[in-house]
C-alpha cells in the first residue's frame, strides 16, 4: 500500500528524539506522518532529529510538511534537525535548504553535549590515526596528565605566594621610608627658627663633611 510504504523507527538519543524513516515517502503518507510527529511534539518532545538517509524517493508535499512541522516546533521553543545526504532527499529539500538544519551524517550532528562532542572527537581521531586506547590505559594517561598539571599549578601557586609576600614587604618598607622622611622634614622645620637665630649650628652642614649635600 502506498500509504504504508515508509518504515519508521522512534528512539531517544540523549536529549533528543530520533526518527529514522526508510523506504519511499509518497505524498499519500504526508498526512499520517505529520499527525504522528505532531503527536510526539504534543507529548513534550521538543528536540527532534529526523534521519532521512534511507528514504529512497520523496513526494513533492513532503518538504512543505516538514516546513510546517519546523514552524510548529520552533513556536514551542524546540528544534528539528535533519540527517541525510542522499540525492533524492537533497533534491526535494533544495528549495528550503536554508530554512532547515541539515547534517550529512551523525558525526556532524553532535547530540550529546560536551561528552557527545568528546565521543565524536574520539571516534574521528581514532579513525584518522588508527590508534585506539583501552580504558585502563586511557585512565592511566589521564591521571598522569592530571598529576602533571596539578604539580605545575601548585608550583605556580607557591611562587605567587612568595611574590605577594615580597610585594607586601616592599610596600611596608616604602611606607616606613615615607613616614621617616616626613618626620625628618617636621624636625627640620621645627629647628629652622633656632638655626636662623644662630642658636644652633647647622648640624647638617657640619655633618656635610661626612655627607656631601646634593
Amino acid at each position, binding site marked *: 500500500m502506498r500509504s504504508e510504504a515508509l*518504515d519508521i*523507527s*522512534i528512539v531517544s538519543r540523549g536529549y533528543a528524539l530520533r526518527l529514522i524513516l526508510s523506504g519511499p515517502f509518497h505524498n499519500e503518507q504526508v498526512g499520517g506522518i505529520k499527525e504522528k510527529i505532531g*503527536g510526539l511534539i504534543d*507529548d*513534550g*518532545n521538543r528536540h527532534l532529529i529526523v534521519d532521512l538517509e534511507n528514504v529512497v524517493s520523496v513526494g513533492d508535499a513532503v518538504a512543505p510538511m516538514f516546513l510546517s512541522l519546523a514552524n510548529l516546533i520552533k513556536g514551542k521553543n524546540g528544534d528539528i534537525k535533519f540527517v541525510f545526504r542522499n540525492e533524492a532527499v537533497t533534491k526535494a529539500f533544495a528549495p528550503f535548504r536554508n530554512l532547515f538544519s541539515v547534517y550529512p551524517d551523525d558525526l556532524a550532528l553532535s547530540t550529546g553535549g560536551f561528552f557527545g562532542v568528546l565521543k565524536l572527537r574520539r571516534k574521528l581521531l581514532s579513525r584518522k590515526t588508527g590508534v585506539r586506547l583501552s580504558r585502563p590505559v586511557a585512565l592511566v594517561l589521564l591521571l598522569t596528565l592530571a598529576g602533571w598539571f596539578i604539580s605545575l599549578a601548585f608550583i605556580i601557586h607557591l611562587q605567587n605566594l612568595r611574590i605577594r609576600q615580597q610585594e607586601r614587604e616592599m610596600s611596608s618598607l616604602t611606607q616606613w621610608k615615607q613616614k621617616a622622611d616626613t618626620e625628618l622634614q617636621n624636625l627640620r622645620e621645627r629647628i629652622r627658627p633656632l638655626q636662623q637665630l644662630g642658636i644652633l649650628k647647622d648640624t647638617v652642614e657640619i655633618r656635610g663633611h661626612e655627607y656631601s649635600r646634593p
Partner: protein
Amino acid sequence: MKRNAVALIVHPYKDALLPRAVLAQRLNDFAKTVVDAAGASQNVRFNLVMPAFFLEILDPLLLLQLRETSKRDQIEWLFTGYTEPFISFSTPWLLAENYKYGMEIFSDLTGVTPSGAALPYSNWEPSAIDILRGAGINYCVLSKALLPPHYRSYRGYWIAEHMGSSIAFFPAHAVSGPSAAPLLDSLEVLFAADPRKSPAGKIICVDLLCNLAQPSIDSLQSITAAIRALDTMLLSYQPMRCSEFLSSHFNMGLQFLPPGLVFTRDAGEADPLFLNRLHAYDQAGIIQRKLMDIAENITARKETKQFEALKKTLYFVQDINRFIPSRSSGFLLAADRLWCFEKLIGVARTLYEKDDIKGGHIRIVDFLKNGTKTLIMENNTVSLFIDYKNGGQLFEIDFKSRNFNACSALNPCRHGLPMIVECPHSKTAFVDHCMPIYSGIGDFLKLPDMEIGDFVSGDFGYKVKKTGAGIKAVLQRNGMLVQGDKSCPLNLEKVLGLEKDAAEITFVYQLSNHSLTPYALRFAVESTFVLPGIGAGMARITHGENTVSDLGATQFGLNQVTEWTLDDAYSGVRIRFKVQKPVDVWCFPTPAAQESEDPSQAVTIVMNSAVALEGSKAWTLMGTMVLKKLRIKKDVVDAI
C-alpha cells in the same frame, strides 16, 4: 563397452534438536561405520555429505581417518552449508554467509573445500544459483522428484539455468536405510529406462539418507551393505565421485527447475507450492520473519565482524528442519518452536543492548512482509508486536529476561488462506470480543456465532506516544455493535504501553457510546499464552488462595477478580495480571494442532466483564500485565 556409473552419496542428517553429547556419539558411530566400510572396499569411490558443524563435533581421530580416505580419492566431500539452511526462507545475505562460513570450517577441518552441495529436502530456488556459485559450489544434488516426470528416467546430469546463471545438478534417488538394497539391485532396469540411445556415459545417483536423530542399526548397516554391494558390482558399474563424472561427461542439456521442496526427504514427488503450505501455519512465518528482521538489522551495521557469534546462532535457526512440519521436529512441536524463539530473542536482545537505547524503542515496519505495518514496541525487558490492521492483536510478546515468546501457541487448524497470522483463529493476545451480556463460559466456545461486535479482526487506527514515562500505542476503531437487530456505533480505544525499561505492559480499554441508545454487552479480551510446563504439571493459575494446576485439561472461571497469576516453572516465567475493576476470567485449554502429536501446551485466558453503557457514556478498564522470572526447571534441549 563403457561401464555406467553409480554415485553413492552417503548423507547423514539431524532433523531434531539433540543434546551435543548425544549427537557426538551418533556421529562417531556413523563415521566409524563409513571408515570401516571404506577400508573394507577400497575400490569403491563414493560421496559423503555433511553440514560443516558436524565436523566440529566429530571425534578428531575419526575425522583424521576420513581425511585419509579423502586423500586416497575414495570419498568426495559435499556439504549443505554450515547447517542445513532453508534456501527459500533465508535472506540472500544470511544464506551466503552460511555457505561461506561452512566452506571455511570444511577447509579448516578436512583440508579440502567441497565442490558440491546436497540441498536439504531438495529445496531448490533458481535465484540462489549465484549465491551457490559465489560460495564455490560447482554442482548440486537434488531429488529427481523435482524434475518433470518425463525427464526422471534420464540418467545423467543437467544444467539448471536462471536469468543467465547456471549450475550443474545431479538428480538423485533418495533412499533411507534398508530401501537402498532393492534400488541397487534394480540398477540395470533403471539404466535401461533411459530413453537415450547414445553410448554416452550414464550415471545414477543414490542419495543414501541416515537420520542421526532416530538412529537404527539398520541405517548404519545399510551404508556398509551399499558400499559392499557396489564392490561386488565393480565389473558392471563404476562407483564414482560426482565431480569425476562432471569432468569427464557432457551434460544432458538445460533444465529449468522451478522452486521446489520434497517434504519427506525420500518422497517421490516434490511440492512446488510449499510456501503456500507453510504460510498456512501460524508460527513458521513468524519465526522466518523474525530471522529476516534480525538478519537485516545485522546487515545494516557497519562492523559485522563483531557479530560472528550472533550470525552463527542465526545459522542454526535458519536450519530447514525448524520449518518443516513433522512429527519429530519442526515448529509444530512447542519445544522446537520455543528453542527458535529463544535463540532469536537472545540475538535481538544483544543487538538492542549494543544500541544502548534508554526508555524504549518504537518501530513501525513491515515485519510480516505482507504490505501492512506492524507496531513493534520494545524496551530492555519486553518486546510487543502489534498487528493493528488485524484487530490490534499482539502476535508476539517477548520476555527478554527468559528469551521467551509468550504468544507462540499454535492455531489448532491450518489457515484457509496462506497468511501468517489469521484473526481470530491464530492464538494471539489482546483479541477483543463483544458478546451478548448474558453470555457465559460455555458461550465463548460458540464464537464467532456469539460475536456481536466487529473488533476481532477489524482495522484499527493508531498513534504512538513516547514520553519520559515510557512508550505507548493508542489503537482506535469506530466499530459496530449489534443491539437487538440493529447495528449501533461503538468506539473502542485500546492503549498498550511499556513502562520505561520494566517488564510491565499496561493496557487501557475504553468503550465509548456516542449514540443516545443504551448498550448492553459482555466485553471479552482473549489472550493465549504458551506454557510448556502444562504437560509436566509445572504450570498453574493462581488467584488468592486458589490454585489450578490442571490447565491442560479443564476449563474453569474465576468470578469478579482483580488479580491473577500464571506460573510456568518449566520455562521460568510468571505472568501477573492486575486490573482496576473486578472482571470475570475464563480459562480454556488450547486444543492441540491437528497435524501434530504434540499437546498444545497453551492456555487461553479470557478476561471479560458485563458492560451496560448508557447513551453518550464511556466504560473504561485499566490494568497491567507484569512478566517476572521464576526459577527455571527445563532441560537443555539442544546444546549447539
